[in-house]
Every structure is written in structure tokens, then in C-alpha cells.
């Protein structure tokens, strides 16, 4: 693989670090590990394969049809249904963006000791300036590669010497212990929801257009989706393993963003703590950018505005204004004092409800020869596509009842 291609994989790493290991992932995976030990590791694998299947599909659609997901959602679903999907996805994007901004401010607080309320506007200004000044590829690289500080959790997981036989057992779904069946199912839905968030595919497919991928980049698309999300999945599993080994025996139920960093600190020391906090800062910051951009992409693509970071802000003024407004609204939400961790839990569960209308048009278009020509879905892609769509519909139906019945996973 050439250096150019290695850098190109940054899109996948960025999507994976920011999308897969965002605040939702940090919260749900550590909580799941602290309650159920290794028993939910299989869900991470299911989520990783699902997001790889659909990201590859929507990357291929965007590279071949030269049109991103939301453009196709409106065309395939029609104006009314498309508008419904747009509203749902914008609400989820805003909630997620608010949670991520709160996460950035919390992380900065743990690093600097400055007041949280002061750090919220500073975090938003920092993110907005990065988005304004940096080209798309550099946003990917800076946030993607600095987010790799999260790899300290893989080191921590290994250093804690887990019983690998028991870890392997966690990859097989089966009976559970440690919490009730409903709480177990709530975490299954939450982990799948955070793995397959709609904003990830919106961002990924728009990123493919931003990066000007074409037919010749289909191989790169596949590699990027597989490497990026597999890496994200590895980090998620490491978080769950660390929580299972360190928090479960002490009865610690993680409810702060700083708690996962405590695991890195305990295992690796001060360097581990700093790597974890920097990794979380850039992963969560990257996710904040992804959600605000996803919101702006969706609006621009739905209403047919000029869009993209490749355009000058003045040339794509409505698109630029959209992501700035999303940042501003999200910061207003967190500045009210609502706990970002709690907000994350809600945004993940609500995003699960928005999954079917997001993924169905991708599946339909990827099967349409008029758009895709020879690059139409093969049998394997269709098998997994349909299988995952059934899973998505099932968890979308179960998400809110489970949240209510388990009091947000508290039992």
C-alpha cells in the first residue's frame, strides 16, 4: 500500500475513532463491562460487522453514483418520508453533538482543572476554528491519529492479564449473569446503537464525495471500512475488558467520563492517564465534528444546497452556517447543565430508532443497477445487508421500551 493510500485510510480511522469510539461507546462499553464482565463482547463484534457492511455499501454507492446518502434517501423515500428521516436524524445529531461537546469540556476539565462551564464555549470555539481552518483531510488526520491515544486501553487490557479463555467465551452469546435480562438486552441495544449510529454513515458517505473517491477507489473503500471499524471495535472490546477486570470486582458502576481514564491510570500510570485523556479528547472532539458536519450534510443534501468542506465557506454559505448553528445549539444544550453522560444514553437510544430509515435506502440503492451498474451488491453483501436490516428493525422497536423498563439500564 502506498503512502498516499495509508493516508487515505485516515478517513476510516477517523470515522472509527470518532464514530465508533465516541462518548456513547465509552459510556456503554465500560458500563456493560462493569455489570456483565465479558458477556457482551459478542455484541461489539455484531456491531462492528454491521457498520463495516453498511459503510462499505454506502462508500461504494457514493463512489459510484457520486451522490451521498441523504441525496438518495430523499430520492428513494420521497419528500415526506425523507423529511421525516431528516428531522429524526437532525434531532439525534444535535443530541449527540451536545453530548460530545460536553465530553470535550469534561476531558479538558480533567486535563486543565478549569471550570466546566467556561470550557464549554472554549471547546466549541476550538472545534469550530479547527473545522473552519483545516482542510477536510487534515481534520481526519489530526483527530483520527491523536484519537489513537485510546490504544492505551488495549495495553491496559493486556497488562491486567485477563483469563483469555473467559474472554473468548464472551464472544459466544448465551446465558448471562450480573444483571437482569432486561438490563442485558438494554445494553445489547445500546452497544449496537452506538456501533451503528446513523451519523457515521452520513459522514462516511459524504467524506467519500469530499475525498473525491471514484470507481478505482472501491478497494480502498473496502480496506478503509474494515481496518477503521475493526480498530474501533478492538478499542471498544478493550474498554469492556478493562472495566470487567477492574470495575466489576470492586462494584464500580462507571457514571463519569473520567472513570475509563482511571483504568488506564491504574494500569499504566501517569502516562497512561494522559494518553487516555488525550485519546478521549480527540475521539470525542472528532465525533462532535462528525455529528455537526453530518447534520449540515443532511440538510444541504436534502434541500439541494451547495455543500462540502472542499468549497469555500462563502460558496457553500448555507452548509457552513448549518454546522456552525449545530455547534451553537449543541453548546446551548450542554451549557444548561444537563449531564453529557446521561444525554449520551438518550441520544444513543433515540439514534437506534432512526436506524431503519437511514439504512434501508442504502440497501435499496446498492441493489439498483441503474445507479450502481456492475458495482451492484453481490450475494454476500445482500445476505449481510438484509440480515442486519432485520436486526436494526428489531432493536429499533425494542429500544425505547427497554430504556423505560430498565430506567436507563439501572435495573
Amino acid at each position, binding site marked *: 500500500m502506498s503512502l498516499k493510500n495509508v493516508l487515505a485510510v485516515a478517513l476510516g480511522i477517523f470515522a472509527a475513532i470518532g464514530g465508533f469510539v465516541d462518548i456513547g461507546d465509552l459510556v456503554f462499553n465500560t458500563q456493560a463491562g462493569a455489570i456483565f464482565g465479558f458477556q457482551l463482547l459478542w455484541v461489539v463484534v455484531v456491531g462492528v460487522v454491521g457498520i463495516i457492511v453498511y459503510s462499505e455499501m454506502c462508500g461504494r454507492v457514493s463512489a459510484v453514483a457520486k451522490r451521498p446518502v441523504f441525496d438518495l434517501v430523499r430520492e428513494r423515500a420521497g419528500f415526506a418520508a425523507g423529511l421525516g428521516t431528516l428531522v429524526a436524524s437532525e434531532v439525534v445529531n444535535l443530541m449527540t453533538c451536545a453530548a460530545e461537546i460536553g465530553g470535550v469540556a469534561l476531558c479538558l*476539565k*480533567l*486535563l*486543565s*482543572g478549569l471550570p466546566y462551564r467556561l470550557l464549554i464555549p472554549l471547546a466549541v470555539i476550538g472545534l469550530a476554528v479547527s473545522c473552519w481552518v483545516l482542510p477536510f483531510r487534515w481534520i481526519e488526520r489530526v483527530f483520527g491519529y491523536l484519537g489513537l491515544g485510546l490504544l492505551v486501553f488495549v495495553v491496559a487490557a493486556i497488562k491486567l492479564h485477563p483469563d483469555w479463555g473467559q474472554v473468548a467465551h464472551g464472544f459466544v452469546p448465551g446465558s448471562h449473569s450480573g444483571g437482569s435480562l432486561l438490563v442485558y438486552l438494554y445494553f445489547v441495544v445500546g452497544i449496537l446503537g452506538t456501533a451503528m449510529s446513523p451519523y457515521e454513515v452520513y459522514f462516511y458517505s459524504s467524506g467519500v464525495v469530499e475525498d473525491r473517491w471514484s470507481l478505482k477507489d472501491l478497494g480502498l473503500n473496502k480496506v478503509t471500512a474494515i481496518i477503521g471499524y475493526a480498530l474501533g471495535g478492538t478499542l471498544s472490546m478493550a474498554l469492556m475488558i478493562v472495566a470487567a477486570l*477492574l470495575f466489576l470486582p*470492586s*462494584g*464500580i*458502576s462507571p*457514571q*463519569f467520563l*473520567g*472513570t475509563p*481514564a*482511571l483504568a488506564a*491510570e*491504574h494500569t499504566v*500510570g*501517569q502516562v*497512561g*492517564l*494522559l494518553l487516555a*485523556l488525550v485519546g478521549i479528547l480527540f475521539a470525542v472532539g472528532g465525533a462532535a465534528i462528525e455529528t455537526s458536519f453530518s447534520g449540515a450534510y443532511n440538510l444541504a443534501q436534502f434541500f439541494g444546497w451547495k455543500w462540502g468542506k472542499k468549497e469555500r465557506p462563502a460558496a457553500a454559505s448555507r452548509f457552513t452556517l448549518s454546522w456552525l448553528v449545530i455547534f451553537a445549539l449543541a453548546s446551548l444544550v450542554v451549557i444548561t447543565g444537563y449531564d453529557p453522560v*446521561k444525554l449520551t*444514553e*438518550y441520544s444513543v437510544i433515540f439514534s437506534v430508532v432512526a436506524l431503519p430509515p437511514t439504512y434501508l435506502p442504502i440497501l435499496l440503492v446498492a441493489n439498483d443497477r441503474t445507479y450502481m451498474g456492475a458495482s451492484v451488491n453481490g450475494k454476500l453483501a445482500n445476505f449481510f445487508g438484509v440480515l442486519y436490516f432485520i436486526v436494526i428493525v428489531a432493536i429499533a422497536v425494542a429500544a*425505547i421500551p427497554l*430504556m*423505560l423498563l430498565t*430506567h*436507563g439500564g*439501572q*435495573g
Partner: protein
Amino acid sequence: MARKHGLTLAEIGDWKEKFLLGAENALRSKHLDEEALKDEQIKRLQPTPRGRRSSAPSRERWSVSVHLKGALVLGVVVAVFGVGCGGAGKLGVKALSQESKSLQSLAAEGALLAEDAVFGKTTRVYTREHSSDLYNAVSQAEASLKAAKTEPALEPKLRRLAVLAAQVRADLNRLGGASKEEERAIGRELQAAAQESQQISEELK
């Protein structure tokens, strides 16, 4: 709509009142028990100084269906966003066990942080900030435990938990600016508090 389902407006009005009262109570940080709710309702129904009932006449212009829709929306909002809200009403065995588990978690996390501080694994800023987050959470738990009521048989456990919460809060308050020796002592105290909370929660099973 009432006629269609063979109901009177008064019946629907009564349901609505009960629903709104319940929703209003759910939004309180400290839930009222049934008796307190009844007292509040009586107070509300008593004449105001002008000799008029407190319900404004303009509200009567609203149709019943609007009220019901409003109540439904309010109910959904309360149900969804009230999911994680804890209250300080009458605690049963399950709720008390939940409180003790939560206290155990906070104390154990504080103990882990203190241990890392002793061994120089952490930064001064992180210790101060994270212990402050834990302190805030324990303070809330302590306040709700102190305000809570429970069955007579569970009273001693509730009191013990409230005392433990106060100890944990005080330890976490000191942790941020403690010397090495103090950190060691705080770690031990927090560990002991975590174990005692765990014991209480096991006794409640």
C-alpha cells in the same frame, strides 16, 4: 369524545387531574408521598384570598382532547426524561439496595483514585477534578438518603447508609488536596466504606 366512549367529562377531568398530579410529582427532585399529595390538592382547592378557585377560567376554553393530548405529551416527556431521575420518597428494599450499591461504587472509585495518588500514578489536577465529581455525586446521594423515609424495619440500614455517605463525602472532599499520608488514610477509609455498603446491599437481598 367522552360521549363516544360512554364517559362523563368529569370522569375524564378526574383522570387528567390525577395524571398531571402524578407527572408533576415525578418532576420533583423530592417526590411527595400520597398523603402529602392529598394535602397539596386540598390546599389547591381551597379558596384563594379573592374567593375564587385557583383554576383559571380561561383554561375551561380548552377542549378535553387538547388537555388529554397535552397530558399525553407531558407523560411521554416525563417518562423518557425522568427515567434516570432519582427521588427521595419512601424507599423499599430494592431502592435501598440500589442506593447502597451506588454508594459502594462511588466509595470504591474514590479508593482506587486515592491508591493511584499514593503511588504517583495520577496527576494532581485529575485527582482533584475526579474526586470533586465523585464528591458531588455522593453529596446528592447523601441528601436523598437523609430526606428519604422507609419501612421501620429498614430504618437502621437507611441511617447507616446516610452516615456512610457523609463519611465518603468528607473523604472525597479532602482527597483533592491531601498529602501522601492523608491519601493513604483516605484510601483505607473509602475502601472500608465501600465494603460496608456492599455488606448492606447483600443483607438487603
